[in-house]
């Protein structure tokens, strides 16, 4: 047990927490904006998967990681455009639309992977990984430098997205309008502002962030792509929004708690502590359920979340 509480292991756990948490934060912040605008986007997993594949594929084809990340964002945004069209313009059931998009992404990415990248046996297409970008001076700070400031730039972007999102929501006119959309879209409409336009933009932003999160999973973490690579992280992002009570700072906390538990169980196994790690594997989900129960009484869920707005209704 004493081996576990060494400086090396503790720092390693916390640094892993930041890396594991980064895609969750990116996707959850995107989902937060969409939900604050009143649209629940259950297609986050699919949009992440699309971003994951396109990030890998375009990087593989062009040799440019930046092009890959750009393609991931655009591809996921296009998916979110479908989501927005179906949920906002056609006013279709948002839950069903999101689920359908997940299936679409799963099928499309698998089809493209098989048809565009011939991979049988040991011939595996690979890409160069997004390199680490330690921040000068800050990465030299003892402990904190390794834990926070020695990752790739997508990690920094994820962390920065939280205060930026918070500032936007609570300190700007557009943020106020967005929050109002989720609570009472009629008020926005009666002011002569376009509800649909704002909801479209919010959903597109959510898609872009999901694409970025997906790109983190592929070009930011792995030299290769495997089908269904996002492995449920999009769903976890949705849970994190709820566990974070639709507030950026608590979303950050929730994402880091999930990531910490994941990093913790990996190190428990690696160090060899005599403890059934399967319990630790289930722990993030147990915590999610407890957080949901805890938030139930004081939920700040947008009042019009998931309800398609219609001027006549």
């Amino acid at each position: 047990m004493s081996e576990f509480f060494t400086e090396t292991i503790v720092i390693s756990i916390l640094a892993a927490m930041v890396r594991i948490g980064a895609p969750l934060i990116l996707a959850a912040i995107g989902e937060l904006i969409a939900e604050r605008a009143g649209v629940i986007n259950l297609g986050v997993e699919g949009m992440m998967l699309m971003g994951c594949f396109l990030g890998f594929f375009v990087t593989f084809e062009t040799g440019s990681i930046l092009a890959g990340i750009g393609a991931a964002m655009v591809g996921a945004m296009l998916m979110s455009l479908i989501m927005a069209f179906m949920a906002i313009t056609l006013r279709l059931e948002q839950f069903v639309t999101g689920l359908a998009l997940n299936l679409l992404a799963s099928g499309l990415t698998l089809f493209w992977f098989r048809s565009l990248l011939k991979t049988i046996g040991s011939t595996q297409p690979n890409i160069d990984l997004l390199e680490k970008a330690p921040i000068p001076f800050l990465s030299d700070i003892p402990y904190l430098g390794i834990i926070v400031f020695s990752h790739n730039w997508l990690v920094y972007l994820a962390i920065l997205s939280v205060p930026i999102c918070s500032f936007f929501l609570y300190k700007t006119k557009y943020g106020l309008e967005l929050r109002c959309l989720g609570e009472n879209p009629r008020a926005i409409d009666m002011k002569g502002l376009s509800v649909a336009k704002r909801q479209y933009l919010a959903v597109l932003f959510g898609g872009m962030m999901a694409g970025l999160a997906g790109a983190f999973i592929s070009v930011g973490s792995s030299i290769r792509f495997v089908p269904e690579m996002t492995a449920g992280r999009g769903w976890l992002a949705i849970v994190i929004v709820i566990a974070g009570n639709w507030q950026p700072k608590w979303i950050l906390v929730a994402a880091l708690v999930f990531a910490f538990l994941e990093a913790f169980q990996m190190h428990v196994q690696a160090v060899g502590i005599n403890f059934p790690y399967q319990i630790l594997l289930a722990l993030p989900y147990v915590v999610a359920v407890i957080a949901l129960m805890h938030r139930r009484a004081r939920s700040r869920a947008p009042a019009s979340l998931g309800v398609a707005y219609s001027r006549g209704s």
Partner: protein
Amino acid sequence: MNSVVRLILGVVFSAIFLASGSVSAGAPTTLKMAAILTVGGEEPWDGTFLAAWENARKNNPHGLEINEPEFTAGLWGDEAEAAARVYAKKGYDIVWLHSSYSDQVKKIQNKFPETLFVVSGSGNEGLGKNQYWMYHRDHEGAYLQGIVAGMTTKSNILGIVGTFPADDVWDLINGFFLGAQSVNSNIKKKVTFIESWWDPPKARESSNAQIAAGADNILMVATAFEACREHGIKCHGAYTNWIPTAPDVINSSFMISWIPHVDWVIDEWYQAKTNATPFAGNTEKRWFLMKDGAIDVAISDNLPDDVKAKVAEAKSKILSGELVIPIITSPVESD
């Protein structure tokens, strides 16, 4: 008299001709196979199976003309059962379900007695009759990798990042550490499971954790080598030759082959069809060894000569039967 002799000879030759004709009519000339894969050809477990299928197509065992690989992937439970049923109904001779699918085969095998079903790997039940159960034991390959790791480690801490703690994963984990201990008695073991078949980001973080715990040689059964490169340590690959992917990082890779398995199943099918006997599927796991061509190991050219020589020596002994690597499937705990 001559006409009588000619008549007799004619009758005899006709009988021989008819008899030989009747034999050739019973022996099949074509074989139609279909498969249900877990992920697809991009992953070594499935990809090496497809390679074995192509090998059989090329070699035409028993003169059989074998169809091109035809498969579905990623189906489980009822969907896999439905797919197997469709293949059987469409008249495929062999339906190869390349993972834990005996529950599905159990429901349909009696309805399609003319179809030979194959399941592979752990998590299956030996049903017999027209179900055959193929297995892979990779302990010999992992043993040779253990020799490489044991001789090249500086920290004396070796790690394994595995997928699931299954019977056919424990055998290679034990084999790896046995190999390492055969050349280095100071080895400490680290074992981690990611509880997923394919999740490279999770595998990467798990190897980061092992590196933090001191490991400098990791057998990446979960196949993610990024952390090894990042930290300048050595990795070892699994199931296929990963060395070309990262020659500066990967010191060895064990490689599986399904060629003996596919050939054996085709033989079984051919014998049953030719002799018009019912299938007699194995109820116990059936695997093949290094001497049969089911497993091999590739090592890096960058390794020191003494390491290469030690691996070559051990491999030669395994092939000759002088060295028998025990199959141990008991769990290994991290030191």
